[in-house]
């Protein structure tokens, strides 16, 4: 091969390599992208049903139930308007507590239970994940109009 052909071949191979790499990267990107969905939207049935997503909110006081001696537990998460049941098996993070902010990764199971495979509570007690704060904030603002009686009821599916 002449040097020129060699160079063309090298460039051609490089282009193919980059294209394959870009394709792989984009596919992996599509697969690993995880949406954050407001609890209210989940309850209203507006969530990706075929894939994992994240929810976030506050752990409802008194809702943590644990099966004695096992790692299975369930609790409810609220965005102050709607609540959703969450089930989880495993060790919980240290800052997981009633009334505190939490983010859960997982998918919807049957009967409206969110099956979490990962629970996140943040490092710092004063820190709340921005997405959770925003999700709560939306509904808290809705409520300020009439704090005693909620103007917006939770709409279910």
């Amino acid at each position, binding site marked *: 091969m002449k040097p020129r052909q060699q160079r063309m071949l090298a460039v051609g191979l490089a282009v193919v390599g980059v294209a394959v*790499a870009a394709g792989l990267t984009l596919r992996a990107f599509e*697969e690993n992208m995880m949406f*954050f969905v407001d609890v209210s939207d989940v309850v209203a049935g507006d969530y990706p049903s075929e894939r994992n997503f994240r929810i976030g909110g506050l752990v409802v006081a008194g809702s943590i139930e*644990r099966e004695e*001696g096992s790692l299975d537990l369930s609790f409810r998460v609220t965005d102050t308007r709607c609540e959703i049941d969450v089930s989880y098996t495993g*060790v919980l993070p*240290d800052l997981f507590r009633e009334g505190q902010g939490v983010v859960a990764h997982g998918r919807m199971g049957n009967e409206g239970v969110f099956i979490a495979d990962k629970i996140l509570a*943040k490092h*710092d007690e004063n820190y709340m994940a*921005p997405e959770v704060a925003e999700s709560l904030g939306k509904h808290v603002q809705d409520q300020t109009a009439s704090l005693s009686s909620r103007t917006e009821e939770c709409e279910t599916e």
Partner: protein
Amino acid sequence: MIPEIGHFALILALALAACQSVLPLVGAHRNDAALMSVARSATFGQFFFVAVSFVCLTIAFLESDFSVLYVANHSQLALPTLYKVSAVWSAHEGSLLLWILLLAAWTAAVAKFSSDVPEPLIARVIGVLGLLSVGFLLFALLTSNPFDRLVPAAMDGADLNPLLQDPGLAIHPPLLYVGYVGFSVAFAFAIAAMIGGDLDQNWARWTRPWTVIAWAFLTMGIALGSWWAYYELGWGGWWFWDPVENASFMPWLMGTALIHSLAVTERRGLFKSWTLLLAISAFSLSLLGTFLVRSGIIVSVHAFATDPTRGFFILTFLAIVVVGALVLYAWRAPALDSTVGFSPLSRETFLLLNNVLLVVATTLVLLGTLAPLIVEMLNGGKISIGPPWFQVAFLIPMVPLVLLLGIGMHTAWRKQNEGPLMKLLRLPAIAALLIGVILPLLFYGRVSLMLVIGCFAAAWIVISSLIQPYRSWRRKDGAAAISRSALGMSISHLGMGLFIVGVTIVSAFGVESDRAMRVGQTLEVAGLEFELRELRQVQGPNYAAIEGVVEVRDDGDYIGTVRPQKRQYRVQKNLMTEAGIHPTWNKDLFVALGEQVGDGVWSVRIQYKPMIRFIWIGAFVMALGGLIAVSDRRRRRVTS
């Protein structure tokens, strides 16, 4: 009184930084020796006053002066002295002051150890660093003054976040910052060269040691952070692809590309504008990292509490630095480049490939980190990108990089003949392939594609990087000994190989198991028996803890005892998991207590982590190699 001294010192430092930036730059422009000579004294003065300010804040912490808001929020009377000191940089205001101190220290070091650098160049370098100091000092004084008073003073402080009460984390931020900030020196050299319109091989010779030192510290800082996350966050992962981790990793990748590109510029006078661009990028990514951490804009376990003003300030600063540098680059860089040829098979080619692949890797990490922001801005909803994506995407440029690395190390500048190279590398390649397949089979009893790739790559790099030192050691009388810089390179690459060993083995054979466990019960994980002997109360200086005593046995033979704790700190009331780890060179046994899930029953996470120490050892060996290379005496000679 002392906090006020600190505050005034900071203002004086700002004034001196202004002198340090404006006067030498004007002096260099007018070729006025008197103005240029201001550079050094202003630098030392600025460093002195920033140091005074830093010492004042440290004294406030040591004396538990809770009339200072920052101290009251991040310390407490019963806090052990070491953590009172490390609390200084535990949050935004103090860590910013540490950043400023280190910037001043780097500048002072540059001013001190640059007697052979021409006066206009060094005046410009110091001037640019002074401009950066002005920016950060303004940031501190306007938005984040650590000396703000609290009236009335608090009786006791709110305590340091328990997670930060750890020796590893006491030194992780300073090391990391030395690296981050150190890239500003390369940045300043790049800007100075573009302003002066003059970039020769000596320029690269002066820039390179500073860059390599910064890179070595950044390497250690990141490794230490990873180690801390492993044992202190309690869950045994060593890298999470968290945005803030990425923020430190991107400058590292770019810095790695930069030190390789600088090598080409120094030896061959090539890649000049490319080197400049990398120097600008590495520092810009450091700033971007700062912005991501401090603005709270991205969801991260590390994020500081949100403050829009600070985020805005940093973003503006970032924009000025990046846009300014790139405009200057577009204007001046084309004139600097020279055209010298090199053959397709030469060290230049391999270093070029190294650079391309590292830049691709950086771009991918940047893409994954910023994707949530971009998608949200386009109203695509709130997304996050999981670690699996990074693992796949990152490997795409990394696999070719490590394979080429083993060859590139042995190629000659300008032109390498095929024959000798093939002869030299044939045996190592075969050996690496055999090791890649046989070793995992032998020790762990199974193979997979990724495992073979990983083990082969590790063996390939380790063997390849040992060739030169080995030959030097076995050399006949009269043959040249290996130079420090070649030895440093070999050691750094060896560290890379060790790192790959750790990553490959721990991802393939690590075992993680969440279980419920009662006192007296024995669980089997990864073929080892873990027995919970007892649970007991333990009192620490500022916490109370429940400690599990877990005995580990292998087929009945005693291996060790680990003592995981669940701590409750008295002031913040936070629960904290302190993992129990039994480390040996080839595996970690890791037990963490979850919580009580029944009468005398606790949830536990038991992990078996083979070869995990190699990850951090590898990183430290990499850094060590860099420092050895810098110590090469030949570096200090100037070629004309």
